[in-house]
């Protein structure tokens, strides 16, 4: 039994096996809720304020002050996004896309009181008669609010963020 799981950066805090599994479960659950379109439960995983959901465009670390993002939500905009995805007259989502992702390469470190979790994903999305495959890497920053893990920031680098994209009909 391995009691300590190495993190990406050896200088960082190394999570215990329990921590590794608890955090991995959180990441898997978050993906599952997004894939199944359980938007209320998914939103509940986020912190109460000061959050950021960021999907850069063109370049992985494009400075938002001078660049476009694919998604750049604060709490208020993320809430509006949920309203939109559930809206009766949001035609894009009238037939929700089916999505399923596989997550791997999870690395966990800690900065101050924040868990920094990086992972890779492969995501299949199906809408109407077309199936697309998306790849990307995610960085979650998780904090504990009243003893419960919450997402402080989530950044998703889509592998094709520099290419011509179709509509994203799922939560990356």
């Amino acid at each position, binding site marked *: 039994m391995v009691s300590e799981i190495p993190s990406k950066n050896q200088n960082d805090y190394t999570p215990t096996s329990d921590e590794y599994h608890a955090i991995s479960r959180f990441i898997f659950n978050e993906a599952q809720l997004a894939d199944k379109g359980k938007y209320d439960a998914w939103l509940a995983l986020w912190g109460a304020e000061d959050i950021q959901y960021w*999907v850069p*465009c*063109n*370049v992985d670390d*494009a400075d*938002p*002050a*001078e*660049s*476009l*993002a*694919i*998604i*750049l939500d604060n709490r208020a*905009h993320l809430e*509006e*996004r949920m*309203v*939109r995805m559930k*809206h*009766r*007259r*949001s*035609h*894009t989502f009238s037939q929700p896309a089916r999505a399923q992702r596989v997550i791997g390469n999870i690395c966990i470190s800690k900065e101050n009181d924040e868990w920094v979790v990086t992972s890779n994903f492969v995501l299949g999305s199906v809408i109407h008669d077309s199936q697309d495959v998306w790849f990307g890497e995610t960085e979650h920053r998780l904090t504990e609010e009243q003893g419960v893990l919450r997402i402080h920031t989530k950044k998703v680098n889509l592998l094709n963020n520099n*290419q*011509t*994209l*179709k*509509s*994203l*009909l799922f939560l*990356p």
Partner: protein
Amino acid sequence: MSAKMNLSNPPQFDPARLVFKDRVHSSVFTDDGIFELEMNRLFKRTWLFALHDSEIPNPGDFKAFDLAKIPVIAVRNKDQSISMLVNRCRHRGATLCEKGVGNARNLTCWYHGWVYDLDGSLISDVGQGEKEDLGLTRLPRVDNYRGFVFTSFSAEGETLVEYLNEAREFIDVLLDYSPTGRIRINPKVVHKYKFRGNWKQLGMDGYHVHYVHASVVDIFSGRKNTTGSAVGALQIEDPWSDESSSRARGFPFGHAALDLRQQRLDNADSLVAAVEKGAGGQEFVDNMIEIHGKERAKEIIALHGDPHLGVFPNLQLIHDHLRVMVPISASETEIHMYPIFLEGVPAEFNTARLRNHEDFYGPASFGSPDDAAIFERVQEGLLAGVNPWMAVGRGMDRDWVETGNIQVGPISDEVTQRAQFAEWRRLMTD
């Protein structure tokens, strides 16, 4: 039986019978043969938007992209002029530059080392033919209007000024919003977006907002202030209502505008106050007043630099961005949306414009995916070969003509579509 005609090789049909004032035949959107004819008769004859001159500011800067399905390179020459070259080595045909932007001292083909000067002339000795005959193919015409660079594959035709004519006033609305009269486009900051539909679906349409974007209008109505949002300043008056002072305009040569100017001017005071409250807004407004005086500054700011103009066939200036339509096939289109950076404004003012853009435009925004979804639905429906006409006659009985032969009507009238198709018919049958 499908009503879709077999128009492939050689085309045996008459485009004049596919487009009438009040209706358009489905095949105009679905047929591969028509698409090919469009590339040859329409795109290779008229003016096409190429790029904004700020994208390649220095000698040797180039941008490689596709125009009318042809790979081209826009190059900034040593004398500051811009050449438009076909991106194809005259030897065996390899492209010289990869798509995107860069800087080069000359253009070299890495197949057999043929070297071309920035203006396209062949420099190296290649042991065949005459050097002066082996330069890169140049597009015969390049011209620009206040930094918007247009080009044509045809040596003949209207001048750019004749072509844009009254539409220039709308481009001015955009540029006047910059304190220096100049804007900047960063070719690396772009939403590139695609949908399975015909390029002509991207007309200017003042009719669809309340239907296609119903969810957005609903959500944005819950915000305190939507000045500068893509659906307009809803807190003052719905600009997409036929009762509003908004107008749909169709120009000669197929240009079209959703003209929201009057409503904005009527509400100038509250719109200026809303801009002042935004990031960097106070500094921007004070600066504009210093440059233009209070009255003119108020007018410019109220118009928000948003012409909502479509320049036929491949450019639209909407809200805070410039977009280029890139036809891929009869049923596939790309849209490249470049946010417009204003010169001479506080950095945070431009940043706020980026956020405004993302709100409605882009692949995971609140607006664009609904547009793409309806375009795909139309493309699917048009394959129904029974009763194959689509209707574009709304408002024909109530529209009027203004100076410059501009067709005008309430915002939801299909004058914009009719202008587009009148030009389509002219170029396709001429």
